């Protein structure tokens, strides 16, 4: 006696779930691709800010402001890695109420940045040509 409405409900649930999953995967795909694009550009954007010294959180805020939001947990290790690779230099500033580690572009880093910048400009030119069609 309770079987048919139950079966009907199950059927509806399955159909709804399938549709929901389809929408979700498209959204997921979109998110994934956008993430990839951001990931490709993030180092360039970070370096562009570091002609002047910044500390971690300051950089985080500047990036948010430039609509380049990035996870704090991703930015901080990234800065350390860039320093390890010689692109950035750092120093502890004990001036304010709290000591903070300031990062800046090293000499090698400045060269690296301009090389990266021209690569990016080349690439963007090619991409713009491609998407114009």
């Amino acid at each position, binding site marked *: 006696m309770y079987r048919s409405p139950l079966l009907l409900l199950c059927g509806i649930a399955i159909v709804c779930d399938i549709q929901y999953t389809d929408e979700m995967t498209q959204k997921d795909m979109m998110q994934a691709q956008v993430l990839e694009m951001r990931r490709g550009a993030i180092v360039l954007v970070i370096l562009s800010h570091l002609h002047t010294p910044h500390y971690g959180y300051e950089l985080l805020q500047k990036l948010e402001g430039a609509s380049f939001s990035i996870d704090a947990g991703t930015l901080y290790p990234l800065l350390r*890695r860039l320093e390890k690779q010689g692109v950035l230099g750092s120093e*502890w500033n004990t001036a304010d109420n709290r000591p903070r580690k300031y990062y800046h572009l090293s000499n090698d880093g400045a060269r690296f940045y301009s090389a990266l910048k021209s690569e990016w400009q080349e690439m963007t030119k090619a991409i713009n040509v491609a998407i114009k069609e």
Partner: protein
Amino acid sequence: MELIERYVYAVTRALPESQREDVAKELRSDIEDMIEHEKGSKKERVIKVLESLGRPETLAQKYKDSPQYLLGPKWYGLYLAVLKKVAFIVVPIVFIVQLVLASLESSNLNVFGVILEAFLAVPSVLLHVLFWITAVFVFLERADIPNKEAGLEWTIDELPELPIERHAKLSDTIANLTFYVGLIVVVILTATKLGIHDAGGVHIQFFNPTLWMFWLPAILLLLAGLAIKEAVILKRGLSRSVVIAGIVLNTGLTAAILGLYLNNMLINPTFASHTQAVLGDHASFNMIVGISMAVFAIGYVWETVVAIRRIIVLNK
């Protein structure tokens, strides 16, 4: 604040000594900065910031710069292929070796126990195979050896041959082959070792002793023939002659065994009567044997049907 200290500790303890102090200092400063810009009570803000940073172990991995996975796309394909190949070879070998070893060990042969032992050995061996192969590949993943040095650069010689259209599933064939070889081992061991000891300590065989002259060797030969047939299928695939040979061998085997059984020539009569004496009831013993024979006969019919079907498919 204690929560912050605990978080920093959780992150840095996964890091190498040299990095620890610097990362701790930097992380503390970053966390404090983030807290300043949050809203709510001090404790709420701390919790919000720490939770936004995520699992300390994961954050630590990001600081470490080592790959955040065991096996990556570089080695995964080869890893799976090696795993499959090794497993396919090792399992039948282990099964048969276990069969032989276990039966050599037990003095009074318990056939089912031996087979069970052989089956039980397989999962543990598979586990070992899985572990060691994975360990080697995890090492390769991290060793950062250029392919050439590791001798693992792929060359055209490594290309596999096209599979023969065997018309029979590979797993089926290997399973059958293992089964027949296992059966040969079991028959030999049953004939030699299975039995009861009578009052005088004399070993009473399971099979009728007169069978030794002709029938036991004949049965063993037929089984060997069936095993060889499976091996041929393995190498060259199904063909009409192979299937027909299989039907002939199977018929011979079934006819021999059932014939012997129905003529009461299969089992040693002394064995049967002793079982009656020991168990107090040979009706159940007869029943077990009878059921096994029935199963055997059904198996024969089944296999013959399969074989005939194969011929029909091949004829198309």
